């Protein structure tokens, strides 16, 4: 064999050797992990990371399909506080007209995103972590899970006070990606809500700022849950405890407008007990709550019926802005969320002290304690309208007064429809110029379409729920 072919053989051996060497180091060559995401195990491994996960849960609630817009908007629009104008951008048309199809593109994301939040909460609650801030973190997760179930059961099920054994929503308490749960009863869902809120209260943090849920905000939500169950004694106990023992105070008449105009995180314990932060960086942009009412789509206006309820001296008229619909009809614009065009957007109020007063008033009135009921409702009514002499009715008329005061106080915050549902009252819309189809409707109670359909996509994915669609859909 000559030298030349020896050299060639050597070259071949060398190259094959290099190839094998490359092959053997291939393990590290093909071992890659994400620079943007953390493994699930690690994300649930320390008290600090659990707190970070809790922030993720708060952020989830801010979603447009939840508290960010759909929840607060629909509670009024599907009742009688607001109307959709004729020249609109195509949002909430079916909701206003009471013709929601099972394929509706508002209903499905509300359902889906709420359960995404419930997953976030379940993961925190079930995390095998102790010490440090863990107890306070888990307490908040319990409270927010209860809050989501409270919204879900009110949107998708008939009220507890109407049929507590009727179909509620699926109760999912642990992460199981393969589960196909059926609907629990309304009573089972409320039992879980009460249990979660009570568990939360044990280790709940004290109030430090408005954008994180704290002890008395949780107790306020507990009072609300009891009220919605018609358990007036427990509702009164919880609400009165908040009124008597919490650091919160009602906003003064002079500061009312600036209170609503302020987009900042609050630490003063004035009025708002828990709100969801929409900060300059993390917010819903043009899909913000203020965008649908005032600056942006401007599709939804205050109904004439509601506007006429306020007396001229009521400070709450300061957040009703006289103007015109896009169609040119005179209408009141909703001014509670005026920061849609500003960098820092409006935070979304979830529970305020005024509501706790109104819960106490309604519960006491239902229990027959007219004096206490009058005191609580007048605390709100007279603060808002210093010229108002206060309610002096008793019994059924007092309850009607309180429900009306509740309507005036909590307008545009998403409760009206569910209040009318739980009280078994019809929805009687007045007429509004320039309104879309659905204006002037009278909707009786009970009525099948006063609850949303289970989304068609859930029905297709979940065999257990397949035959549990709400009647009428």
């Amino acid at each position, binding site marked *: 064999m000559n030298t030349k072919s020896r050299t060639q053989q050597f*070259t071949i051996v060398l*190259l094959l050797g290099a190839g094998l060497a490359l092959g053997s180091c291939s393990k590290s060559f093909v071992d890659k992990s994400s620079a*943007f995401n953390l493994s699930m195990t690690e994300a649930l491994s320390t008290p600090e990371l659990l707190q970070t996960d809790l*922030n993720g849960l708060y952020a989830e609630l*801010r979603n447009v399909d939840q508290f960010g817009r759909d929840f607060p908007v629909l509670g009024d629009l599907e009742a009688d506080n607001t109307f959709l104008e004729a020249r609109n951008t195509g949002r909430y048309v079916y909701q206003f007209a009471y013709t929601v199809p099972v394929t509706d593109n508002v209903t499905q994301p509300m359902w889906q995103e709420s359960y995404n939040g419930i997953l976030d909460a*379940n993961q925190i609650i079930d995390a095998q972590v102790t010490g440090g801030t863990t107890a306070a973190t888990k307490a908040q997760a319990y409270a927010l899970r209860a809050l989501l179930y409270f919204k879900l059961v009110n949107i998708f099920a008939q009220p507890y006070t109407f049929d507590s054994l009727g179909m509620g929503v699926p109760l999912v308490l642990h992460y199981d990606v393969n589960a196909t749960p059926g609907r629990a009863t309304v009573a089972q869902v409320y039992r879980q809500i009460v249990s979660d809120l009570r568990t939360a209260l044990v280790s709940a943090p004290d109030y430090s700022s408005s954008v994180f849920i704290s002890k008395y905000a949780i107790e306020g939500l507990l009072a609300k849950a009891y009220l919605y169950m018609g358990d007036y004694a427990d509702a009164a106990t919880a609400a009165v405890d908040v009124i008597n023992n919490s650091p919160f105070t009602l906003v003064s008449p002079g500061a009312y407008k600036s209170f609503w105009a302020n987009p900042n995180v609050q630490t003063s314990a004035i009025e708002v007990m828990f709100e969801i932060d929409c900060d300059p960086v993390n917010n819903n942009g043009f899909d913000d709550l203020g965008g649908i009412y005032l600056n942006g789509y401007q599709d939804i206006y205050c109904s004439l019926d509601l506007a006429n309820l306020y007396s001229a001296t009521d400070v709450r008229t300061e957040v009703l802005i006289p103007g015109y619909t*896009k169609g040119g009809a005179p209408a009141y614009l909703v001014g509670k969320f005026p920061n849609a065009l500003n960098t820092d957007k409006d935070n979304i109020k979830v529970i305020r002290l005024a509501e706790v007063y109104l819960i106490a008033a309604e519960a006491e009135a239902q229990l027959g304690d007219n004096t206490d009921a009058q005191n609580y409702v007048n605390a709100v009514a007279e603060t808002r309208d210093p010229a108002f002499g206060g309610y002096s009715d008793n019994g059924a008329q007092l309850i009607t007064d309180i429900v009306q005061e509740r309507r005036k106080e909590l307008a545009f915050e998403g409760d009206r429809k569910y209040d009318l549902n739980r009280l078994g009252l019809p929805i009687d819309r007045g007429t509004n110029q320039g309104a879309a*189809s659905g204006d002037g409707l009278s909707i009786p109670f009970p009525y099948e379409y006063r609850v949303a359909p289970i989304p068609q996509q*859930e029905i*297709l994915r979940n065999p257990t729920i397949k035959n549990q669609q709400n009647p009428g859909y």
Partner: protein
Amino acid sequence: MRRFLLCLCFFALLIGQVTAQNHSVTGIITDGNGAPVAGASVTLKGSTRGTSTSTDGTFSLSVPETARTLVLSAVNFATMEVDISGGRTSIGTIVLQAAGKSLSEVVVVAYGTQNKTNVTGSVATVNGNVVSDKPFTSVDKALQGVVPGMQVSSTSGQPGSATDIVIRGIGSINASASPLWVIDGAIATSGDLTSNTTTANPLSTLNPDDIESISVLKDAVSTAPYGSRGANGVILVTTRKGRAGKTHFSVVGEFGQNSRAYNPTNTPENSSQLKTTLTQALTNYGIPANQVPGIITNAFGYPTNYTSINTNWFDIASQMGAQSQVSASLTGGNDKTTVYASGGYFNQKGISIASDFQRFTGALSLTHRASDRFTLTANINASNTAQHTPSNGGTFANPVLASFFLLPWYTPYLANGKFRYGAADTLNEFPLGGSIFNPVIQAAWNNNLAQQTAIRGSVMGELKLLDNLKLTSRLSSEYLAVQEDQYRNPFYGDGYGNGGDAFSNYNRMFDYTWSNFLDLKQKVNTDGDEYFDLKGGIEAYDAKFYTLSGGGHSFPQTLGLKYLANTAVPTVASAGPSEQTTFSYFGIGDFNFKDRYIVSASVRRDESSVFGAEHRWGTFYSVGGSWNINEEAFMKHQNLFDLLKLRISYGQTGNTNGFGLYTSLPQYGSSNYSGQAGLVPTNVGDSALTWEKNKALNIGLDFAILKDRIDGTIEYYHRTTADLLSPVPFSFTTGFSSQNENIGSVVNKGIEIALNGRPVVTRDFTWEINFNISHNTNRVAELYQGKSIPNGSFQITVGHDLQEYYLQQWAGVDPQTGAAQWYTDGTHTKMTTNYDSAGLALNHSASPSVFGGLTNTFTFKGFVLDVQFDYNFGNYIFDNWYNYLNSDGAYAGSFNQMNTQLRAWQKPGDKTDVPQIVYGDPSFSSSPSTRWLYKGNYIRLRNLQFGYDIKPEALKKTHLSRLFIYIRGTNLATFGVDKDLPYDPEAGVASQANLEVLIPKTFAAGVKVGF
């Protein structure tokens, strides 16, 4: 003596010179039509000496006196040998036989070239001429209707947009079903890399004029060498290389204009038509007729004279798009070193306002034969593109949406000529910050710019270790940077609420493919007509991505500052890397027995970073055989067949494309709150995640008859893709909607026919026809627990086409009541007028049942007429925007309606497909149903070119070797379109209309000059 010795040495040297003396051989190579064949290879048989023809088909090669035979070969032509013994200095004009007529043609395949004789798989070759100097922004758009079995469809007419390509049916549900692109051996990025802007195609950075040839590999035996990436077919692009000989320059310039390719008859209503629709809606709602005008003016806020104002928003949102392209190239060199260099400029305006594309390219290729044993080839190809792209779909800033949705009495300008918006707009047509924006302001004041910089380069060394053993080492890399800048002005539109905002995004990708392989050609018998060709090697692929994005708002109150640098409030800041790697071993072998029987096989093992540690390795293989029947003794006595070849192949390939890089891992991702970091679950994870496996059978028959007047290929294929990456849908109550797992399989089978005929071949006149047709059937064979998977408007169901619609079944309008009706189920027996009782059923596919193309080429003396059609039949297009534009009253007064609404039911007995229009559409007649489907059929005149080659005699006085002038039209006419379809019938592979920039029709004139 010393002097004598010196003299002797000198003399000896002289003799040496004399005995080794060379002379030049010249000639012209043309095709059957007499057109010059550029780039044909001319080599001296038995040596490495060679050159190639220039653009005018001429060559000059220096050969030794002893030279006997020249070998002439070119892609798509039969190889030919010419005798030059006896010191011939010219071979005159040699006509090469066109493709398909012979098996000695050379085709580019995986890791090299192959004589067509040895091809056992399904490989379609497209000559560079087919894609060069067309008014298309990227090579993929020029392939429409050209390759049998390859469906090419534009989703958008935006210049520089991505194109959908599917070869032999959709073989994937959730991973990519697109083929792999390989440019000069490098795995190339394709698809859409944009983050902020609407669409940008990485392939648009490649100048089609720099492409020498394209090979489309369709079956297992041709794609298996690409292993885990070969399942959906492979498109090999070979760029132009230098040719030895006289240096030739070529310049091509083309200038033209674009307009809308398809003008639908179903258009938005004009003002008086809108009045008709609106009046019907309100009257049928119960408003007394005498109150209707008052409601329209008071409640809807229309001006009283609105029917006298008519704005054609189509015209307002469109522009006549100018287009120009120039490219110049040089080729030359000697028998040691050759060079190809080119530069190009391309500019096209889209037909929507604020839509354009511009590209600069440069390419350089050098080949150096350092010795008889070692050759080095280096290529570099660099380009920069810039495109403005309006937003698409349902965004208020989309000019196409505006052209359909805006009311006809709206006007873009005030009486004083200024833009209509805000406070000066007393009719509230374009309020600040809300509703559909005035498109002319968006176009004038905003900026949506995407720029791509691409550099593709490769260095390849080929070392002949033995005469029959070659070592190749090739390092190919691709650098791609996509830079997006979006600006929304502070005065009006999306940016108004934020005081103007800007978002910038920078995506950079660098990848390399390093292949080292040995190629052994081993004769088995002494005649050399029985031989092996074996290749084996290793390959590493590493793709590194980096993304950087920023956003902010609050600009100074000016239109003069448009970049993130001037925002007062930063809102988005994000950056980070990601990476994907693959390591492979491969072996490929052919055995040729006297050109009669060929057997080929390949095996490849791939290891990919995308999968869980236990599932990273995959093995892929293929076997194939072909029988050249016409080489058999019994065929020697027949005259009908000039070629008859039967091919069969089978193998397994994989798909890892489109899996996401970290899908196998359960993960949490960022979701921040109140200035604090937040994390939420983002991915379920699947540790068993692995490849999609594609098992494919191919049977093909190639033939040529009647003295090569007709040739063609008929192929049948059957491919089963298993372990499909498919979404397993979860109940939403779990907190996840779905995750991708390896579940299920889909079968594609079909037939492809390509026929080429030359009905007339005379000295002056030739007529050539190329026709192809493909039919594919797609069936889902298996899914997780047999459960159907909802997928947008489709539902993936066993036994059905992957893209079959699952919708409420529209049953038309009751002629007595005018009510909308639906069937209660798929049997179409019972009807209901209650939308909630309407049954959903599977029918109508978004995939075409047949598609293909037809090209006729006529040449008469110097004139060339090229007429190319492509066609598509059997698919249905789903219109996402139907319920807004044909709302039956739901959006009456808010958005303009299509003129199809004028067919609405009026009185008992009316037979129509549009129900009674009622304000608010209480019957949901416009809700999703099969009423939204349109037939997707079309035949399109894709390219019409008429040109004249100035006779060489006429050019003698000039220094030009060629002068060709032509006019061209693309997408000139479209036939057979559903008359109710308001958009272009080309709607991507998924047939979904999404208010994209309309597809252009181009008229152009051009000139090609060679010197």
